[in-house]
């Protein structure tokens, strides 16, 4: 938390505020919106690690409240926009899940065929549903959701050029955000809680390393395509093991952030009833300097690799003579052998049922099945609907399965099946 209120962030915030303060007085619109969410998580199995609050207790529960207000101001006919969106979660169990962030504090200026963005922003790249390979600008706020969809705000300066031949975006990312991890009391963690506070970096400038990214994207008839390049501190944490006092024992897991270069392609073909989706990345990590970090052992199989996600979404419109749409999703997750990416050789199958009713009811059921290892799978259900103009309920449930004897990404959290019920109030 202390690290998230960092110098660069404050400087950028000040720049944004100070530069624009005089303009605020003539701003033609000021709005405050956002939501508060009350959330209960129920874990259906006993926690397996001693320090976890629900250790050997059935139906462990975790309550939390999330605050997500947003202030939005625009002027100059909508060509200048300032957005401020802080976030805070209060959590009854896990002091690492209780955390805050500045999701957005950003000034956007549009003029002619270009746009300038300065501040903390959220940027999404890609087309796939089951994983986001190409998406790399923002760090994952991993304690928020198991699917990794929630991101931390990223300080940036970016320029976007909008031309007939596509959109080019260039990013300067002056500050790195560390991934969030469950604390020792919390669920959804390995046998030892990851010691995020003691992260190690390849770069001596650590989280002040300046990263760069470039993207071209275009929409040509039925094809939407993007090419992207990133160089800098990798957002995915690797894990290093620190040795314990006993020979061969482990004292802790610490995140290791390497310098990487990543090239990505994302493409979608939109046909009448079917969407074809492809994401491919090539990622190269700098060699780990084992001599420099002699006190830790890095868990890494390869310095370079390719990962891909390919699939489709087929939509049946107006099923059973109702207004409902049923989307059938299938994606294959490929990772080259021994590459660090965890999602590999998995098949994702999903059904998205959208009722198209007044309440905006939606259901998504998904299965991620490992092709090589029949025992490794996760099943999830996401459902939500409006209660009235300001309230929405949401239920997410996850069932995680893995073979005990095989150490995969899921094995450590295999006992952490949960149901998450939340009530969101929008203002």
């Amino acid at each position: 938390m202390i690290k998230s209120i960092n110098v660069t962030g404050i400087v950028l915030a000040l720049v944004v505020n100070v530069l624009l303060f005089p303009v605020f007085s003539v701003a033609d619109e000021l709005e405050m919106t956002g939501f508060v969410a009350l959330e209960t998580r129920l874990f259906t199995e006993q926690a397996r690690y001693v320090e976890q609050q629900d250790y050997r207790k059935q139906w462990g529960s975790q309550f939390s409240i999330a605050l997500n207000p947003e202030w939005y101001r625009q002027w100059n006919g909508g060509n200048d926009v300032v957005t401020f969106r802080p976030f805070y979660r209060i959590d009854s169990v896990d002091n690492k899940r209780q955390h805050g962030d500045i999701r957005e504090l950003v000034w956007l200026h549009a003029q002619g065929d270009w746009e300038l963005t300065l501040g903390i922003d959220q940027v999404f790249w890609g087309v796939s549903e089951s994983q986001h390979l190409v998406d790399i600008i923002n760090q994952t706020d991993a304690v928020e959701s198991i699917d990794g969809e929630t991101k931390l705000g990223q300080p940036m300066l970016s320029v976007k050029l909008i031309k007939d031949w596509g959109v080019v975006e260039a990013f300067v990312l002056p500050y790195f955000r560390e991934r969030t991890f469950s604390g020792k009391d919390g669920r959804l963690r390995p046998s030892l809680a990851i010691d995020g506070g003691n992260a190690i970096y390849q770069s001596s400038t650590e989280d002040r390393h300046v990263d760069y990214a470039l993207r071209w994207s275009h929409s040509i008839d039925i094809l939407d395509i993007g090419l992207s390049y990133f160089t800098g501190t990798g957002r995915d944490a690797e894990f290093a093991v620190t040795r314990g006092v006993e020979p061969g024992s482990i004292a802790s897991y610490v995140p290791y952030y390497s310098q990487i270069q990543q090239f990505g392609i994302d493409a979608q073909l939109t046909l009448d009833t079917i969407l074809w989706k492809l994401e491919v990345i090539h990622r190269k990590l700098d060699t780990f300097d084992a001599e420099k970090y002699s006190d830790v052992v890095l868990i890494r199989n390869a310095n370079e690799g390719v990962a891909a996600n390919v699939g489709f979404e087929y939509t049946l419109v107006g099923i059973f003579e109702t207004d409902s749409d049923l989307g059938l999703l299938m994606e294959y997750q490929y990772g080259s052998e021994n590459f660090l990416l965890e999602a590999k050789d998995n098949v994702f199958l999903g059904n998205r049922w959208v009722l198209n009713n007044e309440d905006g009811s939606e259901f998504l059921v998904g299965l991620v099945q490992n092709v090589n290892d029949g025992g490794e799978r996760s099943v999830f259900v996401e459902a939500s609907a409006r209660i009235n103009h300001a309230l929405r309920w949401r239920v997410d449930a996850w069932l995680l399965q893995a073979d005990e004897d095989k150490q995969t990404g899921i094995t450590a959290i295999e006992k952490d099946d949960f149901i998450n019920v939340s009530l969101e109030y929008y203002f």
Partner: protein
Amino acid sequence: MNKFRNKSTLMGSLTTLLLAAYLPTQSIASGVVMNPELRGLAIAQEVESRDTGWHDAKANMQMILTNAEGEQSIREIRQRLLEVEGDGDKGLTIFDAPRDIKGTGFLSYTHAIDADEQWLFLPALTRVKRIASNNKSGPFIGSQFSYEDISSFEVAKFSYTYLRDEDVDGRPAFVIENTPKYKYSGYTRLITWIDQERYVPVKIAYYDRKNKLFKTQTFNDYKQYLNQYWRSHSQKMENHINGKLTQLEWTNYTFNTGLDLKDFNRTVLKRLK
């Protein structure tokens, strides 16, 4: 796009020729002996040509959804439109209410015969998604209006048959049967009542795929802009099968707002809240 434009121009010229040959002294309105297909087409072309040249517009819309039990829910929407001559228009829709979808943006490039191109911006994920385009028949945000009901009128979308003249609320109207050409249309036919003075629809009856009366839309409170373009400020869609009703109340219509093609690029979705 150009193909349609040429085709519709060609058909236009052809109609004019035929009109000139057969009915040198008769206007469209009083043509009695013209065959019903040609007459229907001529009226549709007049509807389109009178609504050509407005370029761009902005408006606010309140959508009132009423279910069979009389319970209401309200959506608030800001709409930006760019005219595309010879093809469907480009539209940008920003949602203000219900609050859980506030900031959601919907960009559509509508086409007469081809599938529309549609992008959705989801603020919670800060993600722009290109979405499937065969849903023209599907309901627009849970209302009784489908995507095809709210997209712009283009002559090339239908084939036409003039049926009769009939008064609607004391004003004379042409009654025309429109048969959709789009293969994923939710309708077998539409019966439209076109005001004979203003050449705008005043009522449309929609027949579903089983050719059963499905919905009726009525257009009220027409106002004229730029001394030419008539816009209904109160539209009502009644669903005869489920008993539900959707009303659209339009305010703050403005034309020539300076919008152009770049304001309908998918990149603008993110900054329009």
